[in-house]
């Protein structure tokens, strides 16, 4: 009796397990076809000289990589540009996003204008945000220069000056990415118990003290996750500069992703493009593993 029961249980378990794998199979299949296989191809091609503009597919070892890292100034410049964009827009989006989240965390009677105000920038395609901001920063018809003229100052040529083009790009990227950050931080804000603030009020803490002593520490996990998430997407910045400056003037604002795209699609150099894409892949993996370690620690604690 006991033996059969045990047998039945493990049979049930085995059935469940089989069904579990069956249900995961379609997802695994898609992943294999669209992620695993292409990555294998990417890694292989990165070791070859392979251009669609001329015949031949020749193994050259790590030559693509050494060329990229030691000789290709345009690539290194694009890495630097990407690093600058990350360095400015990730903290920028955090500050603006935190500000928006604090503003949105008020006892509104009508909630939709605020909620939609946070959702619209998220739902707008990146490339459209780029188009719109390109126009905001237009020399003659731009909204920004209109404001500057109203203030009685001389309007600059935003997008044809390398430095100013960077400023314009950063403004657009921060605007586009801060609202998603605000949504995540707002969700974090709403989990902070009101009683903490009430207790602080009784103790005579000022609003600023409450923010520093309660809000920020309680919000820290959400902030860290949002920051890492934002950094990983910022590594791949493509759409907004593509639409706003197309890397210009010259290649002054070209990002890594844009250079990889140019190399592969415009110059049809698949071998070198693969090597560059592999480098970006490695950078992302490094960033992602930090992220995974963090979230795992988080769930472990919870």
């Amino acid at each position: 009796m006991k033996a059969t029961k045990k047998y039945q249980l493990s049979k049930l378990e085995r059935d469940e397990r089989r069904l579990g794998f069956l249900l995961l199979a379609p997802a695994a299949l898609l992943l294999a076809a669209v992620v695993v296989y292409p990555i294998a191809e990417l890694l292989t091609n990165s070791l070859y000289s392979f251009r669609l503009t001329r015949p031949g597919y020749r193994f050259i070892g790590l030559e693509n990589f050494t060329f990229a890292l030691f000789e290709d100034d345009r690539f290194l410049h694009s890495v630097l540009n990407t690093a600058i964009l990350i360095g400015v827009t990730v903290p920028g989006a955090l500050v603006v996003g935190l500000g928006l989240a604090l503003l949105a965390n008020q006892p509104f009677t009508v909630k939709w204008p605020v909620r939609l105000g946070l959702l619209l920038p998220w739902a707008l395609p990146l490339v459209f945000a780029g188009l719109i901001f390109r126009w905001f920063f237009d020399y003659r018809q731009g909204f920004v220069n209109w404001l500057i003229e109203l203030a009685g100052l001389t309007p600059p040529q935003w997008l044809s000056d390398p430095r100013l083009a960077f400023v314009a790009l950063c403004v657009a990227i921060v605007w586009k990415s801060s609202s998603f950050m605000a949504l995540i931080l707002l969700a974090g804000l709403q989990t902070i118990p009101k009683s903490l603030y009430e207790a602080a009020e009784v103790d005579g803490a000022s609003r600023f003290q409450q923010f520093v002593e309660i809000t920020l520490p309680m919000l820290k996990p959400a902030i860290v996750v949002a920051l890492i998430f934002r950094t990983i997407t910022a590594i791949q910045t493509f759409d907004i500069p593509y639409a706003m400056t197309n890397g210009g003037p010259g290649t002054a604002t070209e990002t890594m992703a844009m250079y990889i795209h140019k190399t592969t699609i415009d110059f049809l150099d698949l071998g070198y493009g693969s090597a560059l894409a592999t480098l970006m892949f490695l950078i992302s993996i490094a960033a992602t593993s930090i992220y995974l370690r963090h979230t795992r620690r988080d769930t472990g604690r919870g």
Partner: protein
Amino acid sequence: MKLAPNRRKTVWIAAAIVAANGFFPALWILFTSFKTEAELLRHPITIVPHDPTLTNYVRVFVDQPILLFLWNSLVVAGLSTALCVFVSALAAYAIVRLRIPGRNLVLSILLAVSMFPLISLMVPLFQTMRTLGWLNTYPALVFPYAVLSMPVCTLVMASFFQDIPNDLENAAMIDGCTRIGALWHVVVPLAAPGVFTAAILAFVNAWDEFLLALTLSSRVTSRTLPVGITLYQGEFAFPWPIISAALIVAIVPVCVLIAIFQERVVSGLTAGGVKG
């Protein structure tokens, strides 16, 4: 809630800032889409159109293949959403309910995929699609888009499935339902809000995607809206009023969708963002 008048004023100002920040660019192009080209060239610029016109919309629909772009976007986003939600629902259920070994590994893989640099996939996908002869076809975008949204959709649905009491399924199975029958007849209807939330996220992701669409589907007749509209500028000298009208056409479907289901979208985004 009763608030002191002073406090009410700050709440109002807060709401106005957040709303203005979000709505401003969309409102700007909405106004511009009704301006004439002559008004646009005026200096200093105008904000509200002086004599509103619908010509830009007529020109977008008549002179430009915007209907074709709209159709391409709808097909690609619709098909990839359907595929993504179906596959993710099965996976989410397996993760939540069935005792599969390596559950955490599956979750880690999903998170890693969601962080994956698209540009790194773009290079080999371009080559593969070229070899298959799939460049400029719907499958070239449908399959990658389905995978791109799979992590978010799986996590969102898993968090919804978790809240459905186990007893209901057990009762259905005692009544003679199979596991899959129980999933289909009991879990899916109860988890419909979660499934729906996942579907909206997948749809918006596919509707907005630019890089792969630009790379894998750049022929004029197979362009989606983001690619079609962005590449206008190469063909004409900045017809801003027309581009504005085109942008409005492209944005409205998604805006309506998120306006109707805003609470769901927010909960889905934060479930995928905070937990994963």
